[in-house]
């Protein structure tokens, strides 16, 4: 019995160098960045359309961005709905979920620390909201 106690005392304690939730947080950060890059590519299409319409307002007299968007809605009903409504909504949801997961896994961090981790996702959400607002005017 004494021998066993001695063995127990000398026995190395199991150590976990990496916590599982750290791996999960690292994975969530990589996924969030992947999602933000994907969102950036998809949002570049409506942003380009918006930039083209803005240029058109400069060169065509008596036109406004809103009137050109209304014209686009009439002539290209489904593609404008896809790029100005469906794409922003999908990417708002995707990026919001990514931010929420990082917030949860990092244990309610300070606002600045969270902003450093997910600033691009938040930017994508803001741009998507702007596209939705402009389209709904």
């Amino acid at each position, binding site marked *: 019995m004494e021998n066993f106690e001695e063995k127990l005392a000398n026995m190395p304690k199991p150590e976990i160098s990496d916590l599982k939730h750290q791996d999960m947080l690292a994975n969530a950060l990589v996924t969030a960045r992947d999602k933000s890059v994907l969102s950036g590519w998809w949002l570049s*299409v409506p942003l*380009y359309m918006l930039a083209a319409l803005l240029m058109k307002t400069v060169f065509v007299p008596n036109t406004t961005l809103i009137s050109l968007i209304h014209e686009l809605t009439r002539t290209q009903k489904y593609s404008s709905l896809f790029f100005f409504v469906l794409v922003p909504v999908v990417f708002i949801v995707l990026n919001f979920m990514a931010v929420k997961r990082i917030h949860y896994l990092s244990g309610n961090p300070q606002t600045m620390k969270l902003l450093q981790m997910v600033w691009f996702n938040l930017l994508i959400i803001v741009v998507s909201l702007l596209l939705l607002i402009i389209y709904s005017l």
Partner: protein
Amino acid sequence: MKLPWFKRAGIFFLPSAFIGWIILLAGLVYAVYVFRSIDSTSHSASDTLINFVFRLLVIGAVYSLIGFLTSRKMRT
């Protein structure tokens, strides 16, 4: 086929497997085809570029979607 086909580097998804290179090549070939198609009917260089950049962004968006979906190992 074994994933991943792509790995992300900055804002691009780069191929990391043979099938990834095939997809990238197909995208580039399609972009060239689109450029030639637009150029044959356009009235000026700016007309070509304005239409081509739009198509190129759409091709890039679809390519990045494929890259995103195939850049992770499948969960077993």
